[in-house]
Every structure is written in structure tokens, then in C-alpha cells.
């Protein structure tokens, strides 16, 4: 069969879903092609969305009209705010989700938006010069003007448990093949990465009376800016247990049997998501490792023991699991495993996530070397937006480091590439104080509005909140009190350390829920101004490409030493040059004048 669409998304994971939805919001005729549509939106691993750095991404997706946060609110069975005592820029919402409810919510949304979904496996692309004309499967051809490819862990996926190796992108799911040949033809470098997941246990067989409960703290918290519109299901508790010396002994004795240590795996795994084998080998002095016992849902007895991901053989998994307090009689419903898969060096991509070789092929998600649902979703929306703009023949959009975590993500990936599966941390954002989860709506609004990808409901909620914030700010400016004999506005007090937020709230008789946000807007305004100034400076410098300067020996006025240093480092633009040792403002002036000269010569 032959099908024709405006835009085709391949892969129904978290990247693919957001890409398809935003293309639809952009008014295009979209199809989603995935290996098994009943598994669309599935959480491959941890049944949770959000966390530090990650809820920041989820809320940015939401502010662009994406669906991840809404689905989380509909499926969240436990909400917690992390870093409550560390300040608003690093505070994060984490939701434990009912896996089944989550994927059902996603699937319902896709069908409500009338996105056509095909069960199929794309194996190749048909091209006309650099432009991709169709995606090809065994029996079908799908024509479109742009394509978003999100194969996740499926491209040449291999699943490893102990010494057994089997093909597949996720347990009990097949792998995807064929596309690697297409990439080879395009001379796109493929690499190999690895990740792992713990065994799943049956809640019926866990002795909860021995475990410490960990209840949620924020059933009123919402991931989406739409808030209570998406009602949370019943809230539940997680539990905590830990490994012990016996567990460690079992693992140590069997370490050679782990796929990770037997030499079966060549891909690099994430350092922040080590297997239990890794933790025991690398931190042998630690006698215990904590395990969070997380329910995968309200109606299921599947339990996710967070902290013991493994690729040990099945019988060893059983042995070490049962050595853990509360798990003495635990039945394993699915064994832990490692998965190795192909990814594409993201330095082959533009910041729009279009490949440099094929202008209408966009890549998003784990295929770009990242890990995590939020990272995938964020790329999905960036790729989806740009693919749609491409179809409509409009100028591309790239998120910026200074206004979003999406910007940090895309910039890091395309500029630096990856050496391990990439996940977001707030420390990756140099403008962290500006990029709070509570102001993601404010940061993304202009873009969302311009691209026309948010509906009126969302916009009204946003504008109401902005009005409320304005009111609060006005009140803070108008209220004055005497502080050690001098009249001060309460706005000024927000910046001082001798008044707390609570005190100022009382003085101004405010209880609006947006007070905290306004308070920190004011409190951080100094940093924000400073960063803004730096950004202005940087933007200016970044805009000046040094691409045409081939030999710095030609630049009159630079010392020989600097000429050599620049010839070695080959900075892309003045900003990169400014970071080179020994480059003074005067040297930068010399460079910018040289650029002008090149411009002048080129104009002739």
C-alpha cells in the first residue's frame, strides 16, 4: 500500500508521541508508525515522570502544549516535591505513575486528535538527492514532506541477561533493523549505548510490614500548568528497603556471570544509572544500597524495585532479590536486563534536530544518545515543531540555552555529542536561576504563541496567572514599612535576608498562590540582570562566525602566540574565541575588525 501524509513520525515512544501531537497542533496531516500500537507511550523502565532537571523539561513540553505532563497528572499515584529546602530553581516535581493508565491516556489523546497510527516497521527511506520522499516498510510506502524518526532502544537492540543474548528493543518486543544501512549510506556515524532495568516483583509476595513506607507529600501538585483539570487517581505510598552484606556477597560471587562483566556488552552505560553490580564493584566500602519499592500501578501487582537494575542471570537475580529484607519470598514477574542499541552521533544534527545530510529528516529521543522520557519528549517536540515548520516552508525554531532546558539539551547534544547516555541535570544549565520549573510557562509562552501551538484554555490560564503576578508585584511595590528608621517598599525587602518570604506575605496580607514565584522573580532579579547582560554580550559574540578565518597569521595585531593558539583551537565564533586563554578584550576587538574586513572584501 501507498500512503501520503504531510508529516510522518516513526516510533511511538515518548519522543514520537510529542512530535506527532505538535505536528497535529500545527495543523498538519500526521501519521505515526510504530512497531506495536498497543504499546504506544509505554514507559520502558521506571514508572515515574519528573525529578530534578526532568520536571523542568516536562513543564516546558507542557508549556508548548505537549501532553506528557497532562498524562502524568492523570496517571500520577504519588507526587513529591524534591529539593523543597534548596530553592525554587532546583525544586522539582516527581510523580510515580500508574504505567497502564499513563499509556492509555497517551493512546486516548492520540485517537482524540485523530492521528493515524500504523503497526509497521520502517526499514528504509526513499530519497531524491538529499530529500527524503518516503519511508519504506516490507509492504508499504509512506510519502510525506518531512519525517521524524524516534527509534528509541530498538535500532539493532540486543537484550542481555547473564550470558544469554537475544534480539529486541525491549523485553518481549522485537528489534528494528534495516535503517542502519540507510544511515551507513548517508555516512552518519552510529554508536552503541547501553542501559538496564531491574527485575519486576509481584506485590503479593512482598512482605510490606518489614518495609518503611514513603508516602507522597503533594497530592495537590500538578505537573501540567492546566492544574486540577486532569484529576489525579487515588494516591498511594512507595516503600524503602535496602541491600545487605549477604546481597553483596551473592553478587560479588557471581559477578563474572553478569552480561556487564562477561565482555558481552560493548556499549557505554550511564554513570548515574549504574547496575547493582556496578555499585557493588565501584563502591565496595558501602554495606547497603537503598531500594525504592515503587508500585507500577494501582490495579497491578507489578512492582519496580528502584536501585537494583541488573544483567545477572535469572537464577542469580532470584537469589539476590530474596536476600533483601521484605523480598524473602518475592516472585519475579520479569527479569532484569540490559539493552544495547544503536544511536546516532547527535553532532550530525542541526539544533532544529534535522540531520545535516537530509534537510527533512529529524531525529529525536534515545536515538540521539539520550535517556529518559522527559529528554525524549523534549526532543520530540523540538523535532516535531521544526519538521512542521519545514513542511509549511517557514523559518525554523531553536530553543536557546538561556531560556530553556530544551535549549541546553539540544545545544549540548549537537555541539558536544555524548559519551554516555545523556540525561538532564540542573547543573548543566548555566542560567539555572532563570530556568525554574514554575516559570516554564512564562519562558515558553512567546514561542508557543508565535507558533500557534497552544489552545485558548492554556493561554487563558497563563494570562490569568500573569495578571495575578502583576497584582502581587504592584502590592509589593506599594506597601511600605519602616525598617530601622528608613521607609522601604516590601519589594525591596524581598531581596534582603533579614525578612523571610512568610513575613513579607504577612506584611502585605497576601495569600495568592503565585506569591512565591513573584518573590523569587524579585529576589533573583539581580542575578537575572547580570545574566541578561552577559547574554547580551555573548549573543553579540556568538553572532560573529569565525568560519572564514582560515589562518590567524593573517590577522594583523594579534601576538604570534595568540595567532598560533587560535590556529590550533579554531574557534567557531567570537564567543568561543573569548574563552580561549590569553584572549583579551583588545584581541577580540582585533578579531572583530578582521571580520569586518572579510565582510567588506566579500561584498565587493
Amino acid at each position, binding site marked *: 500500500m501507498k500512503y501520503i501524509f504531510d508529516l510522518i513520525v516513526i516510533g511511538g515512544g515518548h519522543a514520537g508521541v510529542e512530535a506527532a501531537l505538535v505536528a497535529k497542533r500545527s495543523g498538519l496531516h500526521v501519521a505515526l508508525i510504530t512497531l506495536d500500537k498497543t504499546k504506544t507511550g509505554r514507559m520502558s523502565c521506571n514508572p515515574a515522570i519528573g*525529578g*530534578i*532537571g526532568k520536571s523542568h523539561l516536562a513543564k516546558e513540553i507542557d508549556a508548548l502544549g505537549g501532553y506528557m505532563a497532562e498524562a502524568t497528572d492523570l496517571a500520577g499515584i504519588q507526587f513529591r516535591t*524534591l*529539593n523543597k*529546602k*534548596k*530553592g*525554587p*530553581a*532546583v525544586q522539582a516535581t*516527581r510523580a510515580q505513575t500508574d504505567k497502564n493508565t499513563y499509556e492509555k491516556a497517551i493512546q486516548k489523546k492520540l485517537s482524540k486528535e485523530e492521528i493515524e497510527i500504523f503497526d509497521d516497521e520502517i526499514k528504509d527511506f526513499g530519497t531524491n538527492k538529499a530529500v527524503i520522499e518516503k519511508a519504506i516498510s516490507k509492504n508499504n510506502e509512506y510519502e510525506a514532506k518531512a519525517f521524524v524518526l524516534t527509534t528509541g532502544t530498538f535500532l539493532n537492540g540486543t537484550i542481555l541477561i547473564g550470558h544469554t543474548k537475544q534480539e529486541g528493543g525491549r523485553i518481549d518486543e522485537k528489534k528494528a533493523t534495516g535503517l542502519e544501512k540507510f544511515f551507513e549510506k548517508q555516512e552518519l556515524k552510529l554508536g552503541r549505548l547501553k542501559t538496564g532495568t531491574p527485575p519486576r516483583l509481584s506485590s503479593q509476595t512482598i512482605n510490606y510490614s518489614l518495609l518503611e513506607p514513603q508516602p507522597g507529600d503533594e497530592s495537590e501538585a500538578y505537573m501540567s500548568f492546566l492544574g486540577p483539570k486532569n484529576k489525579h487517581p487515588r494516591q498511594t505510598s512507595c516503600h524503602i528497603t535496602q541491600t545487605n552484606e549477604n546481597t553483596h556477597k551473592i553478587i560479588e560471587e557471581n559477578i563474572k556471570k553478569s552480561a556487564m562483566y562477561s565482555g558481552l556488552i560493548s556499549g557505554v552505560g*550511564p*554513570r*548515574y*544509572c*549504574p547496575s547493582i553490580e*556496578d*555499585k557493588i564493584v*565501584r*563502591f565496595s566500602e*558501602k554495606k547497603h*544500597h*537503598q*531500594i*525504592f519499592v515503587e508500585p507500577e500501578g494501582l490495579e497491578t501487582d507489578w512492582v519496580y524495585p*528502584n*536501585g537494583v537494575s541488573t544483567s545477572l542471570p535469572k537464577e542469580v537475580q532470584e537469589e539476590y532479590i530474596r536476600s533483601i529484607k521484605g523480598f524473602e519470598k518475592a516472585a519475579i514477574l520479569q527479569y532484569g536486563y540490559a539493552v544495547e542499541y544503536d544511536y546516532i552521533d547527535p553532532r550530525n544534527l542541526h539544533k532544529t534536530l534535522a540531520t545535516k545530510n537530509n534537510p527533512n529528516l529529524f531525529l529525536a529521543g534515545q536515538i540521539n544518545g539520550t535517556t529518559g522520557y522527559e529528554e525524549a519528549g523534549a526532543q520530540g517536540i523540538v523535532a516535531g515543531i521544526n519538521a512542521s515548520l519545514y513542511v509549511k516552508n517557514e523559518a525554523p525554531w531553536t530553543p536557546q540555552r538561556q531560556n530553556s532546558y530544551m535549549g541546553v539539551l539540544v545545544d549540548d547534544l549537537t555541539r558536544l555529542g555524548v559519551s554516555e547516555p545523556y540525561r538532564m*541535570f*540542573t*547543573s*548543566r544549565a*548555566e542560567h*539555572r*536561576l532563570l530556568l525554574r520549573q514554575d516559570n516554564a510557562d512564562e519562558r515558553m509562552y512567546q514561542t508557543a504563541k508565535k507558533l500557534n501551538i497552544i489552545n485558548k484554555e492554556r493561554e487563558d490560564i497563563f494570562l490569568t496567572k500573569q495578571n495575578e503576578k502583576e497584582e502581587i508585584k504592584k502590592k509589593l511595590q506599594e506597601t511600605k514599612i519602616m525598617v530601622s528608621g528608613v521607609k522601604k517598599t516590601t519589594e525591596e525587602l524581598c531581596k534582603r*535576608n533579614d525578612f523571610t*518570604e512568610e513575613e513579607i506575605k504577612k506584611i502585605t496580607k497576601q495569600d495568592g498562590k503565585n506569591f512565591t514565584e513573584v518573590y*523569587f522573580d524579585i*529576589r*533573583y532579579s539581580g*542575578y537575572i540582570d547580570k545574566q541578561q547582560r552577559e547574554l547580551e554580550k555573548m549573543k553579540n559574540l556568538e553572532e560573529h562566525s569565525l568560519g572564514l578565518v582560515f589562518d590567524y597569521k593573517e590577522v*594583523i*595585531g*594579534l*601576538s604570534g*602566540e595568540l595567532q598560533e593558539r587560535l590556529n590550533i583551537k579554531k574557534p567557531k565564533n567570537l564567543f568561543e574565541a573569548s*574563552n580561549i*586563554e*590569553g584572549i*583579551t*578584550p*583588545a*584581541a577580540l*576587538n*582585533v578579531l*572583530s*575588525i578582521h571580520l*569586518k*574586513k572579510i565582510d*567588506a572584501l566579500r561584498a565587493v
Partner: protein
Amino acid sequence: MSDCIFALATPVGRSAVAIVRVSGSVLPEKLVKALSIKKEKRGVFIRRLSLGSFSDSCLVLNFPAPGSFTGEHLIEIHTHGSPAIVGELFSFLESLGLREADRGEFSKRAFLNEKMDLSSAESIMSGVFAESAEELAALEDFRSGSLGEKIRKLSKKIESLLVEVESQLDFSDEEGVVSVGASGVSSELSFLHGEAVSLIKSFSPLKKDSLKKRVVLSGEPNVGKSSLFNALLDERVAIVSQTPGTTRDIVRKALFLSGVEVSFEDTAGVRDVGGSKIEAEGIKMAKEAAASASLCVEVFDDPLKMSRNIGSSLVVLNKIDLLNKAVSADGFVAVSAKTGAGLQGLRNEILKRVQSPVKENLVSERIYLRLEAASSLLEQESVGLDFFETTAQNLRDCLKELEGVYGVFDNEVVLDQIFNNFCIGK
């Protein structure tokens, strides 16, 4: 749009007038008000400015854009040339939100606004940069010196504290990360601040000015001082100080000799004194000028009259083209300003004499200021919910300030250390 900058257009130090130039694509309203001028009205105004403890009457020249040297709105403020008054004027301008220009920035703006052609701009820039060449050498020296080492060590400690603070932010939900209280972080901060302060006390900034060498030309009238001076300044370099469009404020002239700015001063004015006193007066003035100068060049045009009147001076015999026999230049330099003979040798000799070894406990002014900024970033109060995240920001900014010495700060370093030190990952 460019911001508003200012710079001293006359030499630093005591002089009859000091001229401070201000340029910007928009002038701050406050400045216009303070000077009570009409923005669009070109002209000269006499204004009395209260500058700190002084009140000085100034000449204010307003050149609205685009009819100015930079092509932007440009104001010149002429005050009495006392460093104290100039200093107050600077603070006054800074208080209005202006900033001191980087070297070459005025010329750059002039160039970008097509007020100056490329070759002029390039030669200005080469001069400007050459000036910093010695500064750079000072910095290199400092980097490899013991002070550089101390600062590197301090930077490492700051980095470790940053790693500790960051681990509390991104990994607070990790069991493997030991939690640190605000009081621990704040006592480490004050310890580091103490170290930074005592370090700063142990050295002083190398003033850009101390790199400028003043060379005084002395000699009787008509020995050819000014033609020698002009000959030493070849055309290309002449532009260095003679900022196009303004010749009136150039009193001294500067020449760049291999990266060292050498300014020449003519000891003029002796002609007025009558009779035999001429010589004595000339020598007296030359001595005075030489006292504060890096080098005094005594110029003669008659081999028979040559003598060294000032202990360390360089003796030059000019007009050798007029001599009918060759002179053996022993203890002096023989040149002809007219034909150019011997000029390169003279340049080399001057350079050799004025170049000074870089002193050990000096650090470039820019780095010094950065150290001060870094130090003040370590001075933090440990209160407030946001203590951790603002501290992380300040420590990052602090390392950024120290970048010149410490190497470029890289985010990955922090993550690497966290992963190496802690068992992360659930």
C-alpha cells in the same frame, strides 16, 4: 545598540586639561540632565559639576550622532587635569551607569560606524594590542610564578566546594550523597574568602600605565628634535595616538616599539630665555623631565658639542648627512632624521633601554580586579531557602572570574567529580 562608554582622551597624570570622552548610541537621560545639555544640540557649554568633594567648572562639548568621531552621540568633558578630579569624574560617570571603555573601543565604534577606514582602524588596533603584549607577558610570568600557583590552588578548593554544593542540588534524593548543612557550606565559604583576601593583599595590580614608557627628547633648538621625532614615528604608527578627527588633545605622541608604548616629549620653551642661560635652563628642564621619564634622549647636531648632561641619558647625534666625514659612534647613536640613516638602530637602542623586567608580585590590573570580584563572591550570608542554589551560582561566577588563571571552567568537571565521589543511581 551599543552601551555608553567613557575614556580619558588625554594622558594620565597631571596636566592642564583632562579630556574625558563619552560615547553611546543612546545617552543615559541622567547624564544629559546632569550636564544640562540639549541632546540634539551641537555645541560647547560651560558647566559647573559637583564631583565628590570637588566642584569644578568644565567645558562640555556635545557632538550629536552621527556627526562625531565615533558616529554615535559623543560628549567631551574638559576638566582640570588633576588625577583626583578625573577620578571623581569617572566615579560620577559610573554612577550614571556608564562603563570605562576597553582599549580600542572608541576606534572600533568609529570603524563600525564607518567613520574610520580599515587601515587606520587596523593600525590603531595593532597598537592597542601591542600595548597589552607586555601585559600579557606579565601575566604569563605571573601564571608560572608562585602567586599563580596559589591562585590555582584556591580555585581548586572553590571547585571542590562547588562540587559539594552541586551534589546537594542535583542529587539530593540520592542515598549515596552525604547531605551537607548550610552551616558547613557557609563556614567553608568564609574560610575560602579569608584565603582570597590574604592572597589579594600579597600583591598589587600592575597599572597599565606603568607599562607606558615616557621618553624625553632634549636638546637645543634646531638640533632637529621634532624632525627626529617625526622620523621615528613612521606614518602608520602616527595614527596610533593621533586619533583622527581630534588633533587638539594630542600633546605627547606615542610610538609603539615592539609592543611597548613609548611616548616622546619635547622639552620646548627654552627659547624664551635669553643669552647664555639657554643651555643651563635647557639642561635643568631636561633633568626635571627625565626624573619622571623612563629615558632621556639628548640630541645634538654637532659632534664637538656632544656631552652627556644627564647620567643615564642616551646621546644622539643627528644630521649626520651634513657631516663630511664619518663619525665613529662610540657611546652615542648617530642618525639622520632626514635620510633615515641609523633610525632603526636608534629605535632598538631606545627599546633596549626602556624595557623593564616584570616584577614578581605584580599582576595585570584586569586579573587583579577579577580576583577582587571573585573574593567578594565568596562573601555570602548563609540564610534563606535559596542559599544553596545562589551559592552554586556565585561559586560558578567566581571560577569564571578566575578563568584567566585557572583555565576555562567546564561543567563536566563537576559532574565527573560527583560521579567519582558518590554512589549515584537508584
